[in-house]
């Protein structure tokens, strides 16, 4: 194969997926009568779903980052007994069908501990259920992203900080976290975007109750199931807009995390 043909084949295959994504976005916009968007968003139920989506995504991302930062740092830096088991366990969720995660969470809530917790904070078919479902998936995503961030930092910098008298905590707080900050912000942003669009586990754990547990991703499903295509499209456009903004932001913040 000559260089010219190789480059042509590479360009066609390499840009095929980008073309598909562009076509999907075009299809969304073309199918929508944008003049009707404002009136659709005056609908109380959709506004409530939008607000619930944004707030639950913020809370679940905060929880996910609280768990993911220490886990990713530990996996990137430490060698200890049982490390392989922990690595395996945190790698499992992203490979599972989302509905399996939802079902497993629901079953967990029916165990003794799950019942005890549910008596204090009602989770199944309630707002905390949305947060739990989003955080369970989001934490695994955040650990993957953050682990690569921490692995890219030289351990020598940290050792040097410690040789200057810094405790592990002081070195982590003053040296590691600031150096990882762009990666952490990028991971949090992507985790938030993932939480915003989470569907399967949210549907199973929290259900879809209008004005109570309905979020944007489940609202699309609900609108389609009752034949309101325009409403479903309007919600989809909002999610697309948020995803595009987040992607642009992440590319600016941490080019490596965005894959550029």
């Amino acid at each position, binding site marked *: 194969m000559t260089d010219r043909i190789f480059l042509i084949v590479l360009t066609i295959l390499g840009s095929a997926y980008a073309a598909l994504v562009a076509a999907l976005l075009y299809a969304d916009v073309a199918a929508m009568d944008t003049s009707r968007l404002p009136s659709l968003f005056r609908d109380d139920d959709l506004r409530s779903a939008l607000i619930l989506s944004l707030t639950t995504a913020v809370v679940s991302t905060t929880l996910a980052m609280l768990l993911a930062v220490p886990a990713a740092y530990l996996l990137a830096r430490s060698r200890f007994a049982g490390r392989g088991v922990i690595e395996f366990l945190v790698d499992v969720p992203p490979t599972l069908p989302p509905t399996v995660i939802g079902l497993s969470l629901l079953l967990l809530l029916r165990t003794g501990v799950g019942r005890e917790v549910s008596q204090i904070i009602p989770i199944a078919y309630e707002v905390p259920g949305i947060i739990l479902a989003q955080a369970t998936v989001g934490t695994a995503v955040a650990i993957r992203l953050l682990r690569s961030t921490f692995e890219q930092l030289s351990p020598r*910098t940290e050792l040097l900080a410690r040789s200057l008298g810094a405790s592990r905590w002081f070195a982590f707080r003053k040296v590691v976290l600031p150096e990882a900050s762009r990666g952490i912000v990028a991971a949090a942003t992507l985790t938030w975007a993932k939480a915003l669009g989470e569907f399967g586990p949210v549907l199973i754990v929290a259900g879809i109750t209008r004005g109570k547990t309905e979020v944007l991703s489940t609202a699309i499903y609900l609108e389609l199931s009752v034949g309101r295509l325009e409403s479903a499209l309007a919600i989809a456009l909002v999610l697309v807009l948020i995803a595009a903004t987040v992607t642009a932001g992440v590319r600016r913040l941490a080019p490596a995390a965005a894959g550029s």
Partner: protein
Amino acid sequence: MIELKNVQARMGRFELSPTTLTVKRGEQVILTGPTGCGKSTLLELIAGFAKPTAGRILLAGREVAGLNPSERGLGYVPQEPTLFRTMTVAENLGFALAARGRSKADIARRVGEIAEQLGLAELLSRSAAHLSGGEAQRTALGRALAFEPTILLLDEPFHAQDDDRRQQLRELVQSDRVARGTTILHVSHSLGDQTAEGVRKVRLRDCWKETS
């Protein structure tokens, strides 16, 4: 005092031959030897960056096996300055003092002093990520000197400096040693460092050996 007793290290299939060396309190030893001979590795073993496979390391008479780097109380300037890039020059210089919980006023006073001595006074607010090689090296040296350690490990700390600056830094380290009795183990290929007054030169002969 630094004492190495038959210290050995391993890196993959290579093993560092047993090394025995004593640097008396207040003495400055210039460690020389062919490139890749294990000089930097010896400093890393002393600083606690790596563990020896055999032998003993004593600092001021205390066995340091099992002590993490923060408990060894020494100042280490590696060959690559390895500055904290998200901090300013001033924050780098004051890092060891902040880690020891010293007051802000105390840190500012000492940082000002050391910056003046190292020609960094104009650069204090500059990000450490935007320094030249020589400036970064002087910042790394200042960071290690700022907390006045009793033991100083220097790995080619002047190699990116011009001749005048190199002489000035050499004198600064010497005067610190004389004034405070600092024990210094200094890796250098520079003839000027090796022939400086009051230093003892030790040449590493047995280097890394491939094991079967």
